[in-house]
């Protein structure tokens, strides 16, 4: 549905005020755990980002379950008293607020308004605890495309060294 505001700002304001917050549908590009997903209908609402639970699963593999928001063995319980901040029903669908979830799991988010793109960084469960002194593992490809993990070299002493062309 589109609203045109050609009949004067005041009337327009009255009309807009009558629209439920979820009426502001946008397209969004989500970058989550290294995966890019186009969302055709998201709700952006006062800095919050609502997507359907179907899109949630597609973009993040997280699912809404009775015990919380889960992916495989990983589950984050949603605070019961604040459930409305995370989940709502509208147009026969369940919607999930990814920004509230990011805040809950201490996940940094970068947003580009012009390109309607959101980048979700490492959640607290994904960030290494360096004070454990355990070397964070990673898996990357070599020039031929063959992947290697740091953990492949366990049992040897390793000099890990970064460099760059620039």
């Amino acid at each position: 549905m589109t609203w045109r505001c050609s009949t004067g700002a005041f009337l327009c304001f009255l009309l807009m005020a009558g629209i439920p917050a979820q009426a502001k549908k946008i397209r969004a590009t989500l970058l989550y755990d290294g995966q890019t997903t186009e969302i055709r209908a998201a709700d952006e609402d006062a800095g919050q980002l609502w997507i359907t639970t179907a899109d949630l699963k597609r973009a993040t593999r997280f699912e809404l379950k009775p015990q919380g928001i889960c992916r495989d063995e990983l589950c984050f319980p949603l605070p019961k008293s604040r459930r409305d901040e995370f989940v709502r029903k509208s147009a026969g669908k369940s919607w999930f607020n990814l920004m509230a979830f990011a805040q809950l799991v201490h996940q940094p988010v970068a947003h580009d308004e012009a390109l309607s793109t959101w980048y979700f960084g490492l959640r607290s469960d994904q960030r290494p605890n360096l004070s454990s002194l355990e070397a964070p593992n990673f898996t990357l490809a070599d020039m031929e495309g063959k992947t290697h993990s740091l953990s492949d070299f366990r049992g040897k002493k390793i000099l890990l060294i970064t460099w760059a062309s620039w």
Partner: protein
Amino acid sequence: MIYQQLKDKNFEIVSVAQDTNGVKDAGPWITAAHPTYTVLIDEQHLVSKLYNMVNVPTGVWIDEHGKIVRPNEVAFVNNQFEDFSGLDSAPYLNALRDWIERGDKSGYVMSEERLREKLAVNDPNVILAAAEFGLGEHLYKSGHLSEAIPHFKEAQRLNPKSWNYKRQAYALSDAKRDYGTTFMDEVQKAGGSKVYYQPPDLPPEAHPKDKKP
């Protein structure tokens, strides 16, 4: 090369290129060096993010159990850039040899207390900077350089210690036009190339007989 001398002593080098353009930019360097150790391509600067690294080259020593025994420090394994850095690689390489030979008994292995001091804690700005940088990289790669620039700048503002964020962004742009500066200008501002790289913090008592290899 140091790897040839040490590879039979249960030692590996894992070398990781922090290059947004991946093989396109890092490939020619790798081909020219024809290394026998493992060289990986890290387009998203994941290793710098995980280890809180802010510059290159940065080295970390990891023991047989996967434990960090020396944290992030400037790590030159040859003197290719000595004119710029003013750093001779010999003391670092001698320290490395000492660790390979003596393991935990090496004076270059840091105490757990010092390691914890040196490995930066989670600063929320540094964590957010990584997300801004990640968004900038994505926008750049999807053909939106001008939209990427504000996010690269935000990453630099949030984590001003990171030379990686500056240098990678400059390399993807006309730095003077888009950032009003250049890498060399920034090095001058920081006090010149001889202070740009902090020499490795090697205890003097632990390398009594440093000789060039």
